[in-house]
């Protein structure tokens, strides 16, 4: 007798009443029939427990709803995520957030670069040694500026005298960088003849003169009353003085690849995913010490206490860390190597990293960095330790002040 057919029909609910009675009658004495029933029940149970087949990935759910312009419901996503299902999305889907983060970082860096450096024009740009020029000289004076009498009795053009005065204030700042002669040249073109003598100053003159005209420099304390000093300080700040604090702030973007094969992606990425903000104190030319905060994800794969279950997830983490950076004392075409060691923590465990990279400083206050990084993540589940790791490409811009 074909027991397979019999049990199949029974489980299908299509067995005739009399056949069903006979089947139950035979159960007590027929081992083969009982074994057949057990086997078919085992197959059906295995199929019902095929959660991988019955569980669409979070990415697919999001993909469907996004394509239709709908918001993926949290209930759907919540029911999908704990299943530990295996997501293997397409290349773009998988790395979409990475591309977006990279694009945002690059655009942001470029915008900052253009804003600060204006590399396509020379007006008000960062200064080179050849065209250093006082910002103050380019500024017009406020119309409300009161009319200040000159110390000289025979000077009719008081406004011109203000310009002269501004130039005097700036001369000490550039006295080491710019030949004094150029100051004289500039002043000759713009200053009335009867003031030429006062324009032809040298640094030595500044030190030695004590006549009434030069006393205007020493009397600069009066200028704040005219609302001028504040403006001049702002301009000085823009000038990025060499008297720096020894601090650097770095904005960094990253692209990561988990070393374990990813089988699930985060349902939602943090908007700052794969970006970091770090503040460094430059101890000397080679060593810098700093702290950073970074938004990232880690693919985690860990097992239960009895090793009978494997859990997979890729949560978003905010990681806080400290960095020690060593910059090599040599460079080629302005590019120099550096290495960095970091240690930190997030809500799940500790993170340690090592990075090797290159940096390029087109201006002394701006540094661009790029580097390859290894990140290890140590965490515990049921008092059992696990380590996951990833490698990444970091790219950033550093502001030195």
């Amino acid at each position: 007798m074909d027991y397979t057919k019999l049990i199949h029909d029974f489980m299908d609910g299509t067995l005739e009443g009399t056949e069903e009675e006979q089947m139950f009658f035979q159960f007590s004495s027929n081992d083969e029939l009982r074994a057949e029933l057990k086997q078919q029940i085992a197959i059906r149970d295995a199929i019902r427990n095929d959660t991988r087949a019955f569980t669409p990935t979070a990415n697919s759910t999001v993909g469907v709803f996004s394509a239709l312009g709908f918001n993926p419901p949290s209930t759907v996503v919540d029911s999908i995520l704990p299943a530990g299902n295996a997501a293997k999305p397409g290349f773009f889907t998988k790395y979409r957030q990475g591309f977006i983060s990279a694009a945002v970082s690059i655009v942001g860096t470029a915008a900052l670069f253009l804003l600060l450096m204006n590399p396509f024009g020379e007006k008000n740009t960062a200064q080179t040694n050849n065209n250093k020029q006082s910002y103050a000289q380019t500024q017009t004076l406020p119309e409300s500026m009161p009319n200040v009498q000159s110390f000289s009795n025979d000077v009719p053009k008081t406004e011109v005298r203000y310009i002269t005065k501004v130039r005097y204030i700036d001369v000490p700042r550039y006295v080491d960088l710019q030949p004094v002669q150029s100051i004289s040249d500039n002043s000759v073109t713009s200053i009335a003849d009867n003031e030429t003598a006062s324009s032809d100053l040298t640094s030595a003159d500044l030190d030695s003169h004590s006549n009434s005209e030069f006393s205007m420099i020493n009397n600069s304390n009066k200028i704040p009353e005219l609302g001028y000093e504040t403006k001049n300080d702002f301009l000085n700040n823009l000038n990025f003085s060499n008297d720096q604090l020894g601090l650097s702030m770095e904005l960094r973007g990253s692209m990561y690849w988990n070393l374990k094969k990813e089988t699930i992606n985060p349902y939602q990425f943090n908007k700052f995913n794969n970006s970091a903000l770090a503040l460094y104190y430059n101890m000397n030319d080679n060593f810098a010490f700093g702290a950073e905060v970074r938004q990232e994800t880690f693919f985690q794969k860990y097992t239960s206490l009895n090793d009978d279950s494997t859990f997979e997830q890729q949560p978003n983490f905010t990681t806080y860390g400290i960095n020690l950076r060593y910059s090599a004392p040599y460079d080629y075409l302005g590019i120099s190597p550096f290495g960095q060691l970091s240690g930190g923590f997030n809500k799940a465990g500790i993170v340690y990293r090592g990075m090797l990279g290159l940096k390029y400083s087109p201006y002394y206050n701006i540094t661009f960095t790029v580097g390859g990084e290894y990140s290890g993540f140590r965490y515990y589940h049921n008092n059992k330790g696990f380590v996951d790791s990833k490698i990444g490409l970091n790219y950033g811009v550093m502001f030195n002040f």
Partner: protein
Amino acid sequence: MRQNFSTYTDEKLVFLLRSDSKEESEIAFTEVYNRYSSRVHAYCLRVLNDYEQAEDIFQEVFIRFFQKIKSNYPETNVSGYLIKIARNLCLNYKRDKVNTINIQENDIYFEPGKSFENSELLDLITTALELLDFDYKEAFVMREYDGLSYNEIAEVTNTTVTNAKSRVFRAKQKIKEILQPYLKDMANNEN
């Protein structure tokens, strides 16, 4: 607050899906997705046995379903209609994929509370499914995974109910034959 359509019939959901109100059609679609996504996914995965492709087709099924339901009201029920779309897409994929070899995934995913033995049997069933003819395989998947009636299977596959029954049974028989050594071991271990 979002409305709950979980008590609505499929017919009512289809009516709401065709609504001009985006909110209504979104909630109705979510309900349809909740009800049938697992079955559609199971069909795509077990018929194709290619995870990436199954994911792509799974997404495409629901997108096409929504687009089509806006223009024509389906004659069949929702689950049957979804499986029919999935079937057409899977057949198109298999047709375009002639002469290429499908490499079976060997990854095993364990769920909490699920024994290794169960996963092992499931892997064997999956492997056995791959050895079946497409007609038998899809009939088995529709019946055992998607819970379709023989009438629905017959409708989706354009065959008779008797044929549908026969295909499901033959598929099960074939799977049992392939799994016989394992099933015997299992029975011996229990004894």
